[in-house]
């Protein structure tokens, strides 16, 4: 009897820092087991070997910021049975989506002597704005344990269990002292999706929203509380305009506040 074919895993990169795909290589205890369970068919950061598509699971890191990449993501989708976006860039546009509220030509002139050499779109957009996405893993970076359990679930044909509550709830579960209540520290925990283990509050700082908005987020209420704590409109706008600046809940709230102070 022929051996069953191993599922083919591909890892793709768009505009990003490489940190999310590095999370896979950072699974030091599990990497060889993962490599035994799948055929790593395309993963340029780790291997020269390339197996042809189609791919059973594609992990996509990074946002779409160039005309070239807008075409390339279509080709990735066509070759992938399941497409999973990993990280803040792929799921919301990343920190580079700050250009979406600025003039990209002005940005290009600030950094480059010859902006005409560049292929840069006016916006940095999430993969889901271009193709159908089957599953999203949030985070800047993603949580490697979440990545492992997701890949393991998908290989068994199950839907992975991912959090849908806020960082605030994680803090309560960990017994962390609330940095906002106790110290007046601005914190995006009430409106941010769980998954990091409430890392920032655990380190006695406010959450900076790297997992993006929670499904039930009510940023308007949080902004009012932050204003009571003495934060200026500009400061609150900057808080939302971080690694998930283009995620709808954060984008709309920062736009509302920016308009208010204009």
């Amino acid at each position: 009897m022929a051996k069953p074919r191993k599922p083919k895993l591909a890892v793709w990169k768009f505009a990003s820092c490489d940190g999310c795909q590095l999370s896979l290589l950072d699974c030091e205890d599990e990497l060889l087991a993962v490599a035994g369970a799948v055929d790593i068919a395309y993963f340029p950061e780790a291997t020269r070997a390339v197996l042809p598509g189609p791919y059973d699971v594609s992990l996509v890191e990074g946002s779409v910021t160039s005309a070239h990449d807008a075409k390339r993501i279509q080709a990735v989708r066509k070759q992938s049975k399941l497409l999973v976006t990993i990280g803040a860039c792929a799921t919301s546009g990343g920190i580079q989506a700050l250009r979406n509220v600025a003039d990209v030509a002005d940005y290009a002139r600030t950094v480059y002597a010859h902006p005409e050499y560049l292929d840069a779109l006016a916006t940095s957009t999430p993969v889901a704005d271009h193709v159908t996405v089957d599953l999203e893993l949030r985070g800047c970076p993603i949580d490697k344990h979440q990545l492992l359990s997701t890949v393991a679930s998908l290989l068994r044909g199950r839907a992975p269990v991912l959090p849908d509550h806020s960082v605030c709830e994680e803090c309560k579960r960990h017994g962390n002292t609330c940095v906002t209540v106790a110290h007046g520290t601005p914190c995006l925990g009430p409106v941010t999706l769980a998954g990091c283990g409430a890392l920032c509050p655990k380190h006695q700082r406010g959450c900076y929203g790297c997992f993006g908005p929670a499904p039930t987020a009510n940023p308007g209420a949080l902004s009012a509380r932050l204003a009571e704590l003495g934060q200026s409109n500009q400061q609150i706008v900057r808080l939302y305009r971080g690694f998930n600046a283009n995620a709808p809940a954060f984008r709309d709230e920062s736009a509302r506040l920016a308009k208010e102070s204009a």
Partner: protein
Amino acid sequence: MSRRTIAVDTLARVEGEGALDLVIRGDKVEKADFRIFEPPRFFEAFLRGRDFREAPDITARICGICPVAYLMGACHAMESICGVNVDGGLRELRRLLYCGEWIESHVLHMFMLHLPDFLGYEDSIAMAKEHGELVQRGLRMKKIGNALMTLTGGREIHPVNVKVGGFYRLPEQSELATFVDDLAWGLEAAEQTVADLAKLDFPEFEHDYHFLALRHPDEYAITEGRLVSNRGVDVSIPEYDDILTEHHVEHSNSLQSEFLDGERAHLGPLARLAINSDRLTPRALKAAESVGLVGGSNNPFRSLLARAVETVFAFEESLRIVENWQRPDAPAIEVTPRAGTGSGCTEAPRGLCYHRYSLDDEGLITDAKIVAPTSVNQRIIESDLMHVAQANLDLDDEALKWRCEQAIRNYDPCISCSAHFLKLTIDRR
């Protein structure tokens, strides 16, 4: 003249996306363009108007492999503007965090990205089937580096615990103490790695490089010192822009940096050994002596060994810090913003990383300049490629392509950092 063209879609085992174009006419390599078309993300533009305290976390996102280089470069620049000096136990803890990154990044590059070239494998996973002990050892060393980053920085990729002035939360002395056994194991494992890697065949290739690195009066420099070269450059960090300049060329979204006179600078582990061998810790110096790397080497392929020597150093230094650390009273020094311009320069695993910022009197950033090490090494990679390709024209196209890739990986290029798909084409006519 015969003409052959080879196109390889992606240069693998580097961080980020770029391409190499080799043009060969008869028996002469005419051109080697190392192209970086990682799309630009415009960090230096969107940093304008941000609060000075936001720069470390934002710039960390330039690179997921060496975020600490960005966290620390930004912190040092801001602290120099605000007149703050972070010293004592806080400085030691920062050095420990940075040693964690050197271990994590160097071991990743040695075992998973570069060594497969020397042993003839497509990747470390294929290599693991026949060199299981070696790969397992690498993974364990890497894990310790990552654990150090988690201890001091809160997480391994994009640490959350670093701030201008120090840290958000200090670990307990007892937390550091749990690392002693692992670091002692790691130090021996790193020494064994130096001995094992020294047995490899290194391609014969030498070039008279202009090496540039930070040099410190007392220690193997990581975060502080003067910019010193093997050809007489010796300036302070704020004078960086007086010695190195950036150009924008059409084939790269990474600005290319070089000395003002057009000479190409070589940054990274070989440069550091060329400048700072006399500052190595005792066992690291012994390791360097055992493989003839005291004073560096003009063979860039030996950068693999240089990383192994520096891994010995990073474990030895970490062990020293962990065993002697005195927990400071406060996790950070209070920093009050003021208007001004300041710079910070640190030794990222792949070489000098420079930050310069200007602030207004509220502490908002009015100007930012960041030079990633690969921006500088890009020029030397191109010249190495010309020479390496020229010396290996007898190889068939597949073997020549692989050798060129290996030569690029000598520099552990981080393309995400420097900008800004690696496609390798060989055009022979």
